[in-house]
């Protein structure tokens, strides 16, 4: 689970989490309106270099994190290639491949990868506690939601351990196979999931009690570890957005840029 690990110090990791989140959101929305294969490819390459250099991440880690995105990209590509009408390139029985399908499929697939590399850069370089603190102080998320989210995050770290404990406790009482191994059924999986949910709710009630007893919701609050938006963060955010704008602008000038109109 990527969130629980400590984040390496790097230029990207030192940037303000709220600024990074805002940039990621902006870039994802902007890419939604780009539907040619070339522009997102450039964004992807720039993003890959930026994440590896700026985040001081090993290439292997970044590539491994991209596998789920790659699987989805392949799925989107093949669906579009096989189902989109247009000039037929290749036909075999009910299967046919069209030029339009290839272009739109490649555009959607590369777009998935481009958004993916930016998300990976965010997740791998952002400490979750810093994100919560930053959301509270910089994005002015209220004290209640941010502390509740923090409580939820604590639970997230504990849940895998609890899951193992529940499974072990059930295995002690479970009927054994002839060779002595535990007979696990899908029903036992469901029971364990239900137990986990009950445990999570009970723990949440206890956390709420202790938060209430510590005066959660009283104003004004002071914080121990202030997070600030520095001038470097502003420069970082502005330059990424500007870079994306330049890429899309050049693509438009060269005539390769296509919007959602490419679909119809």
């Amino acid at each position, binding site marked *: 689970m990527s969130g629980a690990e400590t984040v390496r110090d790097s230029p990207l990791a030192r940037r303000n989490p709220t600024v990074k989140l805002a940039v990621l959101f902006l870039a*994802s929305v902007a890419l939604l309106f780009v539907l040619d294969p070339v522009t997102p490819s450039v964004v992807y390459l720039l993003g890959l270099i930026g994440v590896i250099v700026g985040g001081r991440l090993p290439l292997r880690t970044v590539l491994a994190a991209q596998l789920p995105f790659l*699987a989805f990209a392949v799925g989107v590509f093949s669906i579009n290639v096989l189902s989109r009408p247009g000039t037929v390139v290749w036909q075999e029985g009910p299967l046919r491949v069209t030029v339009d399908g290839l272009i739109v499929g490649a555009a959607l697939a590369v777009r*998935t990868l481009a958004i993916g590399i930016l998300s990976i850069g965010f997740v791998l370089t952002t400490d*979750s506690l810093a994100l919560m603190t930053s959301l509270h102080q910089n994005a002015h998320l209220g004290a209640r939601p941010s502390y509740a989210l923090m409580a*939820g995050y604590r639970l997230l770290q504990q849940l895998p351990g609890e899951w193992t404990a529940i499974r072990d406790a059930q295995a002690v009482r479970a009927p054994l196979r002839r060779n002595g191994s535990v007979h696990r059924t899908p029903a036992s999986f469901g029971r364990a999931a239900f137990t986990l949910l009950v445990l999570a*709710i009970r723990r949440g*009630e206890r956390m709420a009690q202790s*938060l209430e007893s510590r005066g959660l919701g009283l104003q004004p609050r002071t914080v121990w570890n202030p997070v600030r938006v520095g001038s470097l963060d502003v420069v970082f955010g502005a330059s990424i957005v500007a870079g994306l704008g330049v890429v899309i602008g050049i693509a438009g000038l060269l005539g390769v840029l296509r919007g959602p109109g490419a679909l119809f």
Partner: protein
Amino acid sequence: MPRGVIRKRTNTTRRPVPLPPTERARKVHSQFKTRRTLRWRVVDIVVASVIGVAAGLIFWIWNLFYAPVTAPLEVVAPGAQALLYGVWLFAGVLGGLIIRKPGAALYTELVAAIVSALVGTQWGGALTILSGLAQGLGAEIVFALFLYGNYRAYVAVLAGAGAGLGMAVNDLITWYPAMDFSFKAIYGVSAVISGALIAGLLSWLLARALARTGALSRFAAGREVAARA
């Protein structure tokens, strides 16, 4: 009457059988007419977050397995894969059923989406969160239409269907903008059915089962079941 013979009691007013203290407390507790307030307590927001987090983990596991499970449906009728997509919608309905406050369904589904996005999904952070927003909003609107006062099974089913509709609208715009009409129709209908059954009915049964364990004793959802028992 001879001495030593105990006369049989003839009057019919029965004395109450003494109840164990916990049972007595439960009866007394259920008689309190707790005033319904729509303000979020601390326990509401923390437990909603906790449900969201747990659901986010379940979504994450489902993200790993859903593709091979739903692929056969896609082959039978393109778009029918959405028949199983209701799994992604249960967080909002369950949160709404348990917390019973304005925004609970939206918040729980959104937290679940954010958690599964943080842990890593194939759709990219912002788009996963956008789906959570659309799905949670669908359920939220249904709970709001019943003025946050009705949490019976049919409302849960309608909320699930609403979440399914939200999912269909979002998916068809974001992921399948270019598909033909029959795909969109099949996808939409499948999403609504799946939301109603998997997210609606199953969440209602789940909330009832949770209440029976006593874990929801600080919520109206839990006290209702305790009063019936």
